[in-house]
């Protein structure tokens, strides 16, 4: 952590001659008003992306983003301003704008001496952009395309992209916490289009994490993504109409954990629950899932896309139990909502960038494995849907209704997976869908590192995971009436 802090000081403060005493003075200026809490969030990020289509890497881009966000909190009120110039006059302007939320007059004390946040060490403070020569990045994408073409002659189009980010952040808080983090993040995506007998279909796969580009070179991972995208597209070429109506649904392991993210995750974020606008509000201690179901949000998994050494408010991340053996245990909190609800922050305060306010957000959300062999789970179903890959999902927090859209699914008939059906949206009610979980597999898997979550117009990287699950009834939104 000391390393991260030194690097952050060098990157974010030194160029403009700022130091900790300058940050103290800035926070002091905010605290001349009646604010309970204030923080400064410095960010410098470098992002690159390379994309391939029609066999060639035709375009690439490089982006630098830097700035500082200044926040003042007074009761439930938040004043916020930011600057893309990390310079004292700009910071002072932002501080004056942010503190205007509160009346003049002090009630908080200026920090005397900083406490360095003791963050975790979940990933190396590396620079992914420098982890591979530019020519090798281009070659990697060309190999992905070659592998997809090699996998099947019906592939008519391959699109692949490689992106990397290095983000350096530093948080200085009015309670004296000073924390920093250096966050690498890489991602490789492949989308293919296949065509046969006039019918066209698409398939996508990808992955990544808080690692270097070497990740994709190990064990032929990049090529594996290409083959997986082709496989999914070919399955869909043969897919028939999806069923319509309520039925048993078996969800595969890993990425289908988007169920948890939508059905319960968002509804358990602290802001909605403080305000009483979530279908889960006031329900801690109640049974919201079948016995045996345990769900956590865990920001502490090494190298995962959703992990953080400290959150964007300088709080170390943790493993937060959301549901334990079917009982609702707690919510995910940032500092503001934790304070207003009288609980401890859980390391879930996240923001898209310095120009956005932190909100309670998920990190990696997953369900613990059970006892069942996944084959037994499928064999137990007379008639149902087996959904193994998904696109996006969405939830109405207040009514609790959520959807997630299958992109690869099959019918189960008489205990056997029979034929593929087209993608369809599944819809359910968050507070009771997990009470219908009747079997939990022993095959917990996390997703490959592609999740992005949107809330209030802010995107942040997240992870999901689950074992194979049987849900006794869920509405499947196909076109074929039963």
């Amino acid at each position, binding site marked *: 952590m000391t390393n991260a802090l030194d690097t952050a000081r060098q990157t974010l403060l030194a160029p403009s001659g700022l130091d900790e005493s300058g940050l103290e003075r800035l926070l002091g200026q905010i605290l001349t008003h009646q604010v309970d809490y204030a923080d400064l969030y410095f960010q410098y990020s470098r992002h690159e992306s390379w994309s391939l289509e029609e066999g060639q890497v035709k375009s690439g881009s490089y982006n630098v983003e830097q700035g500082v966000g200044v926040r003042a909190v007074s009761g439930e009120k938040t004043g916020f301003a930011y*600057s893309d110039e990390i310079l004292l006059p700009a910071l002072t302007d932002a501080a004056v704008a942010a503190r*205007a939320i509160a009346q003049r007059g002090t009630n908080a004390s200026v920090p005397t001496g900083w406490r360095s946040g003791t963050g975790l060490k979940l990933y190396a403070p590396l620079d992914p952009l420098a982890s591979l020569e530019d020519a090798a990045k281009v070659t990697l994408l060309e190999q992905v395309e070659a592998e997809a073409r090699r996998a099947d002659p019906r592939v008519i189009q391959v699109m692949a992209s490689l992106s990397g980010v290095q983000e350096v952040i530093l948080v200085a808080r009015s309670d004296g916490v000073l924390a920093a983090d250096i966050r690498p993040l890489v991602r490789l995506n492949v989308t293919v289009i296949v065509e046969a007998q006039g019918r066209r279909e698409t398939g996508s796969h990808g992955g990544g994490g808080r690692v270097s580009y070497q990740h994709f070179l190990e064990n032929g991972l990049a090529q594996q993504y290409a083959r997986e995208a082709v496989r999914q597209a070919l399955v869909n070429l043969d897919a028939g109409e999806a069923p319509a109506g309520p039925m048993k649904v078996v969800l595969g392991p890993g990425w289908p954990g988007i169920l948890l993210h939508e059905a319960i995750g968002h509804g358990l974020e602290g802001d909605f629950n403080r305000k009483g606008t979530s279908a889960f509000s006031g329900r801690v201690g109640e049974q919201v899932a079948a016995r045996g179901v345990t769900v956590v949000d865990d920001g502490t998994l090494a190298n995962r896309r959703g992990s953080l050494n400290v959150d964007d408010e300088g709080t170390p991340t943790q493993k937060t139990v959301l549901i334990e053996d079917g009982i609702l245990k707690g919510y995910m909190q940032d500092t503001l909502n934790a304070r207003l609800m009288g609980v401890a922050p859980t390391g879930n305060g996240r923001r898209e960038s310095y120009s956005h306010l932190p909100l309670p957000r998920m990190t990696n959300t997953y369900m613990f494995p059970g006892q069942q062999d996944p084959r037994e789970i499928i064999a137990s179903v007379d008639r149902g849907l087996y959904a193994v890959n998904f696109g996006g999902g969405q939830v109405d927090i207040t*009514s609790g209704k959520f959807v997630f859209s299958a992109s690869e699914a099959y019918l189960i008939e008489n205990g056997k997976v029979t034929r593929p059906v087209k993608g369809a949206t599944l819809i359910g009610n968050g507070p009771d869908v997990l009470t219908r979980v009747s079997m939990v597999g022993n095959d917990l898997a996390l997703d490959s590192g592609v999740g992005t979550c949107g809330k209030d117009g802010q995107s942040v990287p997240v992870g999901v995971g689950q074992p194979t699950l049987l849900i006794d009834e869920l509405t499947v939104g196909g076109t074929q009436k039963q």
Partner: protein
Amino acid sequence: MTSTPTESAASAGRSNEQLQTLVAEVLAEAKRQGASSAEASVSVSQGLSVSVRLGEVETVEHNRDKGLAVTLFFGHKSGSASTSDLSPTAVRESVRAAATIARYTAADEFSGLADPDQLAREIPDLDLYYPWNPGMERAIELARACEDAARSADARISNSEGGSLSSHEGLQVYGNSHGFLGSVETSRHSVSCAVIGQDDAGMQRDYWYTVARDPTDLEAVEAVGRMAAMRTIRRLDARKLSTRTTPVIYEAPVAASLLSHFVGAIRGTSLYRRASFLLDHLGKPVFAPQVRIHEQPFLRKALGSTPFDNDGVAPANRDIVRDGILQGYVLDTYAARKLGMRSTGNAGGVHNLTIQPGDQDLAGLLRQMHTGLLVTELIGFGVNSVTGDYSRGAAGFWVENGVIQYPVEEITIAGNLQDMFRSLVAVGNDVDMRGNIRTGSILIESMTLAGS
């Protein structure tokens, strides 16, 4: 607390002239670094957003953003870079980064700037810039009045996500080495409200908003609040429906999504990638025969108006669909070249896409449908743009004898977009003008509804 004095977007750091100079400097730097051609875009914007919840101020945000994006071409090889730092050093570094990338990208015969004869010759003033800057106190007052109107509209409004106001203005300058240099000043102001209603069956949430270039064109904040309350209350005690085949009316605010799927399918990128369910449909019927869809880039004060697209190309008033037949695609310079066509001035998207309204209001459409589903909210992303297969979560109302019977939720509606467009029965005259796609409510002949 004092309100900030009014400032034009330009003075958020730089004047129009300064930004034009900066673009010229970036292009000169690109030339110095060996680029055969280049384009650059610089933007600055500023604004204020406030939200009030349960009568108390919740957030006050001061926004101030700027950015530079540059693309360099070395023959047919290209690289791009962007930065939020407009200092001379950062600008030089961005140009250098773009040049570095261009060394590794492949030569693409279709890449490059727009054809000089397609660049906008005149930059008409489309009346898009009405800086407001109400100041924090006034903004809070309006947001509070909006939320108050919602909360006092009905005793069943039990909670609130708040009322909010946002006011933004900005300046964008685009230039390229063909000598094109254009700038557009725009403003955008909005007021919105989201409230929660409760009865024995549980909670429901809905919202309403108003948005305009000119603050005097905004709906009264109290009307916005009352509309949010009405829309919330009418959703209480929603039921599930059994699975069935049914006609569906998309209420105007959600009907625009159908047209955005259409635009996605006739975008150049989707076409040359063969990733569209409307490949090779030019000159062929894609909608029911009565349908006309046109583009109006030069409407004064409109949210989708622009004098030139992101390539500097002049857009045009044109029919995209006439008598149900596809008349043209939505193309930027690159995709147009790939397809052997001319740019349609749509780099960055469509401009005030409008589907010709019919002569009935929503009540008339409900009578025409007689029995079926009125959809007022859609959730999820279940649209396959390659096949047109469509399946999304929905909430709305069940209609019998042309009259709304009860609210419904936790259902999906599914079909194939090609079939849905071809069986589009009618468009209402209740046109929602708040977006870049303008449509009334749309009646589709038949879809599969999945429920209990």
